[in-house]
């Protein structure tokens, strides 16, 4: 079935089974591979994107349900890695293997869009769905605090 999706500010026509999760449409049909497959059951967060500004798990989001909504992926967060969360991620040196980090960054940027200066408990609650096997959690917390400061300045 053919329909249109608004991805990173541009309208894309895709021809997929309507129940196909956005994750696979983004990766295989649109070619945006920054959004990762990790579990397929919304329990690891590697596929986190924004739908109308809210963090969403693309592996459980049917493509047809996203028609008319604004989809943002890691590739669309900024043109040049200049989003405060990306800057903070580089300055702190968060990623190790990096596979989960698109999802981490999308979850963190959605949190900071809602809460300018999140508490540690708010950070933990917002990020607890995002698994990282390399163990970058401490750096993630540090980078979210740094990003909050960058946004304020």
């Amino acid at each position, binding site marked *: 079935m053919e329909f249109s999706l608004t991805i990173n500010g541009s309208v894309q026509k895709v021809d997929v089974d309507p129940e*196909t999760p956005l994750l696979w449409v983004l990766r295989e049909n649109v070619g945006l591979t920054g959004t990762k497959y990790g579990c397929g059951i919304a329990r690891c967060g590697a596929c986190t994107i924004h739908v109308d500004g809210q963090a969403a798990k693309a592996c459980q989001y049917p493509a047809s349900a996203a028609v008319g909504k604004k989809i943002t992926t890691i590739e669309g967060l900024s043109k040049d890695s200049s989003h405060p969360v990306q800057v903070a991620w580089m300055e702190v040196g968060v*990623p190790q*293997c990096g596979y989960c980090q698109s999802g981490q960054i999308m979850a963190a940027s959605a949190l900071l869009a809602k809460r300018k200066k999140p508490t540690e408990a708010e950070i933990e609650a917002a990020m607890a769905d995002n698994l990282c096997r390399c163990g970058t959690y401490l750096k993630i917390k540090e980078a979210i605090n740094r990003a909050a400061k960058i946004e304020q300045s």
Partner: protein
Amino acid sequence: MTEQTKQILSRRSFIQGAAAAGGGLMIGFHMPLANAATIGPNPQSLTTAVGTEINAWLVIDRDNTVTIRIPHTEMGQGGITSVALLIAEELNVEWSKIKTEFADANRHLRNNKEYKVMSTHGSQLVRLQHPHLMQAGASARERLKQAAATAWGVDRSKVEAKLGVLTSGSHTGTYGEFVDAAATVKLDKEPAINTDPTKWWLLGKGTMRLDIPNKVNGSAKYAMDTKVPGMVYAAVKASPVPWGTLKSFDDSAIKKRPGYVGTVQLKAVPGKRGQPDMQDAIAVVFDSWYRAKTALDLVKVEWDFGESGKTSSAQYYVEGRKLLDQTGQLTGKGDPRAAEIIAAASKVVTAQYERPFETHARMEPINATVHVQADRVDVWSPTQDQSAAITIVAEQLGRDAKDIYAHTMFLGGGFGGNGGGGTGVTKQAAEISKQLGKPVKVIWSREEDLAQDKQRPLALAKLTASLGEDGLPTALFTRGAWFTQDGINNFGSATADYGISNMSYNFPVRHHERHNAKTHIPGSTHRAPGANQMGFMAESFIDEIAIAGGWNPLDWRLKMTEGQDDYQLVLQTLKDKAGFRTDLPKGQGMGIGVVESHGTIAAACATVNVSRRGRLTIEKLLVVLDAGHVINPHAAAEQCEGSVCWELSHAWMGGLEMENGRFINTNFDSYNLLRIDQMPEVETIFASSGGTKWGGLGEPAGPPAPPAVANAIWYATGKRIRSTPFRQHDLSWT
């Protein structure tokens, strides 16, 4: 100890060090990276270097850009940056002039292992590969100096090479100007490398990793991201009971579904049960992976599980406990006096420890893409050894390795599991591509990944010690047992009692035995193999005997390592920094663990809090390590934090459970691992003894963490934990 270098680095100082190395303050976009070397997001191109090749590792362009070829895998451990730092230290070039690319594995095999080693495992990159990597830089530098010396009519010893510039008296020129001439220079003798940290100008400073910028914008490419024109997607299902045989299958329900390409039956080869070998499996191929995965669930498959289908973790524990009461094979020489002393002793402590299967669960699920063509084969595999990816495919296809090209990708986690080479996935992709005549990407669903990966073995141990009048041990007797496929004896250096039999304490008499029990479950190395499982058993037991003997556990460890300077340095540093106490109020506790692996001694002090109802909070881990030298403190500290998280994930939250021969918790809902709200604060201190010691840092910080936490829980609650995961224990207290 006065002669030993002692480096104490707080996390703050790493960040500042990184900023200083980047030439700027930590303010504003790109500042810390402006002066950094670069790596491109698309490592799959076999080579992009421009300029003259001076040796296999180095290409220098006339504009003085230096391309360093990285023979190793980047899985987040900082491999790219470590190789570049080691070579650049000797070559003496500006860090900002460096580009990196992955070395060509086909060339490596073609030229008789030209890069010496391509495998990336065992925390070996810095500790074992630094001599030849530094040599590549030193050799190139001396040849550049010789080329300039010849042109200028001076002796090579009168030429200085610094930051990419050659100088002698009034003569001056860049590396780029002399690289063509240098490439033809043959040295009489290779120069010595500089391993004296006090004379390093680049190493040891704290450098931001080169792969980070590509990992914040989605541009870093993993094997999972491979796309080749005409590529089709395969979802596969092997026997849920590993090594079960396929009796029949019915795929009639899927053949008319849109996008169907084909069904391929994959067959195990009798007698071939090694790491990269295929099991019986069904592959369903479609034009998208989601279609393939959903169709696979509709294929009816009949398996024959044999006797393996009747086994369970619970049964293995029963079997294992029996083995612990039977004589096993000796580890080391053995000492018959141990049993005699224990039998005659008035005070004896004995305890049994048990740990379940665990799995790697790399964030990048196991996958591989292979494109078989008449004249060449291309492979994209998430492997820790790209040269092995070539030989694996060569074997499966019966093709000459020289026609096979492995594209090195970023790896979405390694952890000793080597997903692409350690499982049958790469052979599966090769076989399907061959049969269908198309490029094929095979992706294992997360459930397939956890069920069919090579697992950390289920293991048990029984430890017994007799104590003398002074409360110190007079003899130690241990037996270990683990369950490995076909009773395999070891994974690398890890055996059924590694972490126990190699404890460094000065026991007057000691005797160690082990059993290799058979299972159908394939096993493998798992970050800090052996040390990660048995280190918990050994170091928990040490606390049991220290406390039974009336000793403070930290003082016991200092006493029992007397005469071993590196242990004394690590333990004394821990004592100075950790504030270890045994007199905290109930519900609070501190605990110690010390495990040596990969040539590095790692000691941890845990601080925990346990509520009356038994809710565990791990507040902090202080880790002190002696790896001899640290070339990049920034990346090293990350590895230590990561290793702690890794081990606590399994010891606290993990536990892969087997029933009816198959694993039953095969996704992150039921095999749940450490999350951000459980992660303790980690402080890493390097107490480096220097000299000729070069230890690894990718793994050793993990193993002491679980015993440190369990020992802290004992102080907090009075409850001794002798099995993992901790989550299964009732820690409540009154």
